[in-house]
């Protein structure tokens, strides 16, 4: 096995034992990154110089033994909607081409404090709006398992770079499934924390009441290690919860004997892809054999979650993206007067999916429609949350497929926006309720594409997710499979 193919916890042991330096590791990782990048296209910006400087700093820490954490010296990818001081942050949009934030996102500060190394900013759907990374202004990222297929989205680059071993882990963001769906499509682990678990300061906002940042990793232990670093209260984020952070790496190893697992009938429709259905059911059986109890539950309002989401998210987005007006940063297209400047700038700076969602959101909030759309969606939101609250009175975690299908081909779902939106059908209610959820691989399709298992937990009970996932993972070898980087 090559160095860059190892997990964080494996390679950290090497670094600690001084078998190699972070600079050596980073150089090797960057070399591989660049070798496969023409095929995969995971990165908008590769930050080689920064990475090597950070690696050198990490080596100093390791040498002196001060401030060494499990992430010290480890090369990671950062989704390009997280602000990185002095480093281009584009949200995969023309609107922010060349934009260099004068500050770091809190999660980036925490990774830096932990001694991590940033190899680059990863590709994504423009402003996080999409499920395939096809709406990126800069490039299309390929799924390492089949280069003619999408990696999922919006955190497509964050998923592909981990899957293709271009980084040991990455940060993504999830508003309707944007960590979990690409994790599922690329055969890796992705966790969307409870809303408020991880600070949103420095996360370029899409939908403020739904967005969360989370780790994307090769295995569950790596996910726990990253969660330990990024989680916790931040005074710069008023929606950040002041709830203690357990040691997830310790929690992860606890027994799942007697753990009650809920299987919601709404997530297993008759039309569900039979390969997905079979893989997930097998995984549930596996969990049973590890000591968990399985109960059938219902989340009766989940069929309405997509409708509610496609009011709430675009509405908040229409407001969050209004600031891109060509005045203080980003693209400016000149005009005779300010209104012309605004309109031309925004027409040129945003792609069609972003424009669609802005218009949808503007419409839903506009005078005369607020009650029918936005207010209605907020009420449906409460019903969806109540479903989860009720379910969690009976069970500890809920298990479902992550997505209805494995990776699809480029262009397959871009004609009709609605078909793309339906990809998120199993992930979306989780964001609406604000609960945490994780995806990890549970099978491979006949066409050699990964299938993902979603585990949903109670608010602030990421520990239960991690221990359930860990127990399952360690009793299988899906996490050891590597993609072929071939096209078919």
């Amino acid at each position: 096995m090559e160095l860059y193919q190892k997990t964080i916890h494996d390679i950290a042991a090497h670094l600690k034992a001084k078998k190699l330096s972070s600079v050596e590791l980073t150089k090797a990782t960057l070399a591989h990154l660049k070798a496969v990048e023409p095929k995969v296209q995971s990165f908008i910006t590769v930050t080689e110089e920064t990475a090597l400087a950070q690696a050198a700093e990490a080596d100093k820490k390791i040498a002196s033994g001060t401030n060494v954490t499990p992430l010290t010296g480890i090369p990671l990818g950062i989704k390009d909607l997280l602000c990185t001081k002095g480093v281009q942050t584009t949200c995969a949009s023309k609107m922010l081409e060349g934009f260099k934030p004068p500050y770091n996102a809190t999660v980036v500060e925490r990774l830096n404090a932990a001694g991590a190394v940033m190899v680059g900013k990863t590709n994504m759907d423009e402003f996080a709006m999409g499920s395939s990374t096809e709406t990126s202004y800069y490039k299309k990222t390929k799924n390492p398992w089949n280069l003619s297929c999408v990696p999922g989205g919006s955190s497509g680059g964050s998923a592909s770079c981990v899957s293709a071993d271009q980084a040991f882990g990455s940060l993504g963001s999830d508003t309707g499934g944007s960590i979990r769906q690409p994790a599922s499509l690329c055969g890796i682990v992705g966790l969307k924390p409870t809303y408020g678990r991880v600070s949103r300061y420095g996360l370029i906002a899409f939908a403020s009441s739904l967005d969360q940042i989370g780790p994307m990793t090769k295995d569950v232990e790596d996910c726990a290690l990253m969660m330990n670093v990024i989680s916790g209260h931040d005074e710069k984020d008023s929606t950040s919860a002041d709830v203690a952070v357990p040691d997830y790496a310790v929690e992860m190893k606890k027994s799942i004997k007697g753990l009650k697992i809920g299987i919601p009938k709404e997530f297993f429709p008759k039309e569900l892809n039979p390969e997905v259905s079979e893989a997930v059911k097998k995984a549930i059986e596996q969990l049973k054999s590890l000591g968990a109890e399985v109960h059938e539950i219902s989340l009766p309002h989940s069929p309405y979650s997509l409708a509610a989401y496609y009011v709430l998210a675009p509405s908040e987005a229409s407001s969050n993206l209004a600031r891109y007006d060509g005045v203080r940063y980003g693209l400016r297209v000149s005009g005779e007067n300010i209104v012309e400047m605004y309109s031309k700038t925004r027409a040129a700076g945003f792609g069609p999916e972003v424009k669609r969602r802005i218009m949808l959101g503007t419409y839903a909030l506009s005078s005369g429609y607020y009650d029918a759309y936005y207010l209605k969606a907020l009420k449906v939101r409460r019903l969806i949350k109540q479903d989860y609250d009720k379910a969690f009175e009976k069970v500890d975690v809920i298990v479902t497929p992550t997505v209805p299908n494995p990776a699809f081909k480029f262009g397959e779902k871009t004609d009709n926006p609605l078909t793309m939106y339906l990809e998120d059908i199993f992930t979306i209610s989780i964001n609406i309720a604000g609960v945490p959820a994780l995806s990890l691989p549970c099978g491979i399709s006949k066409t050699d594409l990964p299938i993902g298992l979603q585990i949903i937990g109670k608010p602030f009970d990421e520990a239960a997710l991690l221990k359930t996932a860990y127990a399952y993972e360690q009793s299988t070898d899906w996490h050891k499979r590597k993609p072929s980087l071939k096209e078919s």
Partner: protein
Amino acid sequence: MAFEDYEPIIGLEVHCELKTATKLFCGCPTTFGNEANTQVCPVCLGLPGTLPVMNGKAVEFAVKIGHALNCTIASYSKMDRKNYYYPDLPKAYQVSQYDKPLNYGGHLDIVTKEGTKRIGVTRAHLEEDAGKLVHAGGKSGRLDSSDYSLADYNRGGIPLVEIVSEPDIRSSEEAHAYLTALKSILLYIAVSDCNMEEGSLRCDANVSIRKKGTEKFGTRTEIKNMNSFKFVKQAIEYEIKRQAVVLDKGERVVQESRLWDVTENKTKSMRSKEEAHDYRYFPEPDLVPIILDPAYVQKLKVELPELPSAKRARFVTEFGLTPYDAGVLTSEQELGQWFEAGAKFTKNPKGFANWMMGDMAAQMKEQEKELTDLKFDQKKLAELVELVDAGTINSKQAKEVFLELFNEGASPVEVVKSKGMAQVSDPKAIEDAVDKVLAENPAVVADYKGGKQGVIGFLVGKVMQASQGKANPKMVNEMIKKKLDS
């Protein structure tokens, strides 16, 4: 139809900048007048990814305003986004309050020539200020003819409380009285500098007219850009007349925003800028609701300093001042405090007040001195009051002594002693002086005895002259009368 047949309906919206140390959502300072864009951070610049965190002090000040205006303080309040595009608005939305304001349902009492009137306060809510635009290029550097504008975000994010009155105001005088009373209250509770020149107090007026005796409100216009109370009064007066002319012609008043033009003394339509705004208000997802502990809210009420109206009433009952005097002395908080501290040292607070409002105010104005510049304290002024009341010196002498007090800080008692100014009130001495003057002025005496009683003033004056002004004028007057009438 004449102008007098119409009744004006006026509502005022006052924006008050809070004098917190920092902005509403970030730690940037709120100081005025510094170089452009030097008090800006990622949050108040609206950089992508930034988030607001509410300034607790701003909430405290806002609640104090609510209490001072007799409002109900909301048990549940939240912030909302008001979405619109303008280059002074960095996020293209203003964080404000829409349907759950912090304070509502209050009132403010004003005093005009007609008496006391209660003006309703609909709401007083918290919101952030926008940046400042300078319009440049073009013909006059004004908004409507400029080629370009320059944006400075130092002011962006400073906390504002928007105070909205009910349309209870019926004249420009009432509007002026409302603004004066409101400013006084805001200064008393020390939440704002209320400086209109610096923009820490701003006023927009909503004006409409209706035929007297009718109930339905007419179409209203919003008048902006009035940066002094005087201009507010003038603008309202102009607008009332303008609307009357429009209606008299049989035309309709257009609902629009109008700017007060100080050079032409007119309101002018801003129509080309205006379209009906669809603000698309929705609850601010980056902030959490404000649900204040009733004990905390009550504590703020109890801790409020005595407000101008209460102080005025107390000055009348406690010190026997007239309402007018009480009004003058409470017009500035420091003045009222100075008076009250001084009233302790005198049996004649009214007399003490008269000195403050008369000679002291005149000298302070002429010499451009503030209370803090005075060379004397209240005890010394009280001495002067006592000297006059005891008859030791007369009022003319007292004015002389006052000047010494004001200019040198000299003790009145000492001045009178050293200058030997003590009024002569010895009856024998007065009788002697009167006898002498009567003897020296037989013609005048004859006039008086002949019926010309007014000449007594001349005789009193002669005695005062002879005594170098030291004679007790009252006693002189009585003595002369006694001698001549007998």
